[in-house]
């Protein structure tokens, strides 16, 4: 069982966490102004990269706080964790897709 480093609590077992999908997908400023295409893109479409991926995680079994993490989807290693609202840290080989 993997250890995940919560930025508030430190390393905890993965069963304490919930996965929250891709990070940095902002709720549109004015949903009514979006086209059907833009809105469905927000609702349903996410990246699926091989390698580093910025994700949202929720420490439901601990501090009950959401945070962001960069995780390598090939090795499952967490490369960085950071707070919601912060920019994704620059890591070698990573790119922010949105």
């Amino acid at each position, binding site marked *: *069982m*993997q*250890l995940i480093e919560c930025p508030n609590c430190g390393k905890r077992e993965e069963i304490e966490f919930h996965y*929250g999908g891709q990070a940095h997908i*902002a*709720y*549109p400023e*004015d*949903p*009514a102004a*979006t086209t*059907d295409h833009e*809105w*469905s893109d*927000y*609702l349903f479409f996410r990246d699926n990269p091989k390698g580093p991926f910025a994700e*949202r995680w*929720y420490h*439901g079994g601990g501090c*009950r*706080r*959401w945070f962001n993490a960069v995780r390598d989807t090939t090795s*499952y290693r967490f490369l960085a964790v950071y707070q*919601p*609202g912060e920019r994704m840290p620059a890591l070698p080989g990573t790119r922010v897709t949105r």
Partner: protein
Amino acid sequence: MTARRLPTGGSIDRGAPLAFRWAGTDLTGYQGDTLASALLGAGIDTIGSSVRLGRPRGITSAGTEESTALVQIEKPFPEPMLPATTVELAEGLAARGITGQGRLADRDDPARYDARHAHADLLVVGAGPAGLTAALAAARTGERVILADDDIRVGGSLLDYGETVEGVPGEQWAAGVLAELASLPNVRVLVRTTVFGIYDDGFVLAVEHRSDHLGAAARPGRSRERIWRIRTTTTVIATGGYERPIAFANNDLPGVMLASAAHTYLHRYAVLAGESVVLFTTNSTAYGAARALVAAGARLTIVDTRPEIPAGLDSGCRNLGIEVVTGHHVVTALGTDRVHGVTIAPRRAGGPHVAGASATIDCDLLLVSGGWNPVLHLFSQARGTLAFDERLQAFVAASEVRGFELAGLAAAESAGYDPADPFAFALHPVEGVWSIPLPADGDAGGSDTRFVDVQRDVTVSEILRATGAGLRSMEHVKRYTTLGTALDQGKTSGLLGSGVVAQELGISVAELGTTTFRPPFSPVGFAALAGADRGELYDPIRVTAIHPWHLAHGAEFENVGQWKRPWYYPLPGESLDEAVLRESIAARTMVACMDGSTLGKIDVRGADAAAFLDLLYTNLMSSLKVGSIRYGVMCGPDGMVKDDGTVIRLAEERFLVTTTTGNAAAILDWMEEWLQTEWPDLRVFAASVTEQWVTIPVVGPLSRAVVQQLAPGVDASAAAFPFMATRDAVIAGVDGRIDRISFSGELAFELNVPAWYGQAVWEAVIAAGEQHGITPYGTETMHVLRAEKGYPIIGQDTDGTLSPHDLGLGWAVSKKKPDFIGKRSFARAENTRPDRRHFVGLLPVDPEESIPEGAQIIASREVTIPMPMLGHVTSGYRSAALGSHFALALISAGRDRMGERLFAWSEGRVIAVTVTDSVLLDKEGTRRDG
């Protein structure tokens, strides 16, 4: 009967005889025996028969790699298919060999199982000389060390072969190391403990066998097995090696044994496995066993596949009177019930083929050594890669894995290990001999008896059939033949299988590779894995503060998530249907009450609480007045209904939100997700208060009188206390709150008091209502009452693909708010299709005919499958108020079908129904105001 216990020797405790029962016969062994060594000591070497072919099978090893000696334990508790070599002998043990398959217990296991967590800097797996050395070195530096071994004491191979370490006998040296380890507070030594799984980030699972060996002396309540959940920085794998067999005809006969096993039985258990012995080997390691057996009085002939053997061995054997036949192999083990001889033949130089005539040697024990496989299961589980070593003819570790170290031959050699004694465990180059050609004279009786996987009865021919079918990968061959999939998971047969396939395909074993090892290393009982989490402790049970009353009054319970909720309260002899009719009539005509405490309750407060709820709900909540209540619907961003409930404004900046029982935790999480990730600037706090409050709906035309009596300080009249209002109140002397909410359509008051006073207030309600015939009702009646009113239950009548409009809740969707979660999606083309499913009611043409939940809605009585499915029934009940069965359903364009005749199909029954509005009772809502 050829195996026997010697009068002296071994590390068994002859002062502690143990009585046990084998296949109905009373036998005696000693403390320190395994079941296998005790059986051999008693002269028993045939255990059971094989699963597919029914061939007799004996004892082939002395440890976890055992592939033939499978036993059924009868006492102390039935357990199927354990290797006799891993069952520690205990007083009163009863077992028998199995014919193919074991048998599970036919009763509950009374033993306790538990689990412990442990943390370590270093975990050492295997307490042989390497493991002990590693553990001691780390322990002396102060590191937290855990040393685990599946044997009953530390020492590993030192217990088996009588080697010396640093000039002292191995057992004595191991005892000295153990004494030092035991004196250190930072060390935990776990024997009888099998490390069976390696997982991420140093997480390791092990199972400790804690009480079987103690028998009746075990302290009451001591767990039988314990799962250790170890988190370690570094793991040293010092698990030694397994000797491997060779595939020749009849190699599965009782009396055929690995050479090292015979050595172990002799040295450790003082059991001589045979008097007249043939040793068939491809390497030098088995010569130590030969020397020991001869010293114990056996006659022994060595058949070595190598054209010549190292000079030291050669002269040593001459001195001991051991005949060595070089350049030969065993072709067939002779015998039907057990081995009584072998035929041998010279090997053609450079190849495995028989050349020349065969000779016969009589024997009662045939030892085999095809070389050694390092035990790399745990390393492989840790995703370490393996490479084939030509000199050892075995797979060895090929990569480094973070957090893992290997102890073994390479470590020993790099430390300068170079045994002077030619009979010591020395790995001269091993000859890669896998299978021997079938004998020409048909000794094997026509069918191939060269077993590769003895436990699965997989022969060389079957593997060749797989390669003949075009399979080229060991993973495929494994699945085609079942090779390596038995209880022993191919511990001795896996590499042998690779060797046979490589030989057939004319490629090297290195090129072919081997299969991947996965947890568990050896079988682990489900009881151990479950630990204490079984029966009542399997999942928490949640009960309300009024639960004791429900129990005392004969309630039947329904599981709603983890909650136990009263389902109905049957009178003596009453059925569910009868009770529900009675309870619902009481609610519609007099007064009834229920325990609604499981309702999810969330306290939402803060300067922006109203703004937040406006974003969360489809309705406008900020306009709600203090003291008022509003029904609300919550959607996901996709516009699909997520939950519903009420919002009560307790103060300008404080709301109480209710959720469906099953969604309480999920909705709190949902709020947190939006507050933390999307709108962190909103000043809002949300906290669950579900368990803090008991909620008692008092329902029915006479409810006002009951509530007025309970809470005289509140004016309960229709004018003073209108529908969807809330009032602080002293209820039966307890400070609480009364909400005019109705989930039944009747005049209703929901009494809320702190949970501590829940049962007292409930009893006060029952007492106050007695004169009015108050009737407690359960969830089934609640469902009927709400369904008559067309109130959907989120999760029963919905499935995450329905908008508020589909459910007929368009009235609860604000048109004023610029945005809320889900609003934009209502305009999506998919969500405006006219043929979307609508929530409607159904009445059967025959009022006595029930409409089952899950029934499919079709347009014609004639059923021709496939046919268009218009929808399905989500709820179906019998209604006392309607005098008919009825149902709620989701039907394509249902609201455009009012009055239409459709049909519900359920398990072959076709029910004619009429489509109606989802609200079947009191559509004007006059009843709720009393």
